[in-house]
């Protein structure tokens, strides 16, 4: 597909998604499928849960369709945050960008969770 065609294709998708909503599989909230920056949402901004619709290993759609729980924050070299989701049924992992209207409290809780439960005494690090 040429870049012109791709751009047209993208704008068509965005146009369709403007009025599109989905119901969160976890908390039931009805949310717009489009995030504030115009990209397509893949998780609920309120509880950050997602749905297993894409097969990350083989590519393409997944037959699973189960709930995906947010389990970790990953920081890219660019400084951007990603949410790591794990499917509650098949354990597959996905990584997706954080949206500007994602629940900050849940994001922060996930980010500091490893430090709150260290597997070794943090005193070993002195003034880290």
């Amino acid at each position, binding site marked *: 597909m040429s870049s012109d065609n791709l751009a047209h294709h993208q704008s068509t998708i965005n146009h369709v998604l403007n009025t599109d909503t989905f119901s969160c599989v976890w908390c039931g909230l009805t949310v717009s499928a489009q995030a504030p920056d115009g990209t397509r949402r893949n998780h609920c901004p309120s509880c950050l849960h997602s749905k297993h619709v894409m097969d*990350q*290993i083989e590519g393409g759609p997944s037959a699973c369709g189960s709930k995906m729980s947010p*389990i*970790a*924050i*990953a*920081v890219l070299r660019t*400084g951007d*945050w990603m949410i*790591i989701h*794990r499917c509650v049924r098949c354990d*597959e*992992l*996905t*990584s997706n960008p*954080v949206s500007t209207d994602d629940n*900050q409290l849940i*994001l*922060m809780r996930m*980010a*500091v*969770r*490893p*430090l709150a*439960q*260290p*597997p*070794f005494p943090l005193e*070993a*690090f002195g003034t*880290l």
Partner: protein
Amino acid sequence: MPRRTQSGGRKNRHRPQRYKDVLHGNGGHRANDFRCAGCRLDVSLVAPGTAHRNHCPNCLTSLHVDHRIPGDRASTCHGRMEALSLTVRPDGEWMIIHQCQSCGELSANRIAGDDNMLPLMRLALRPLGAGSIASSALLTTL
């Protein structure tokens, strides 16, 4: 329908297991070692606290050898997997999220008792680094 009466007669005749010349036997050269794809350290597969070591205890690097099931060794990728993030299981145990640098696949792996604390702490502190969303959010709430 299988005829069980025939095999029933053999039940008491114990045949000793034939000796198998397997590659992962104890006698093989470096049978229990691997060389880390990240720091080139020679690492023993035996790890304290886990049944099977899947990442380097020094730099936490792993290799993409498993497909869908941990330990199935069915992947043909064999790319280098770098520690991307940490997650905490409900029982409090830390898991490393690895990401393959060749194909992007993610996997979650238990930490071992002798994993280097410094790279683990660096991972844990990454979201709180200078200029991150977390540190600016913390500063505005304090």
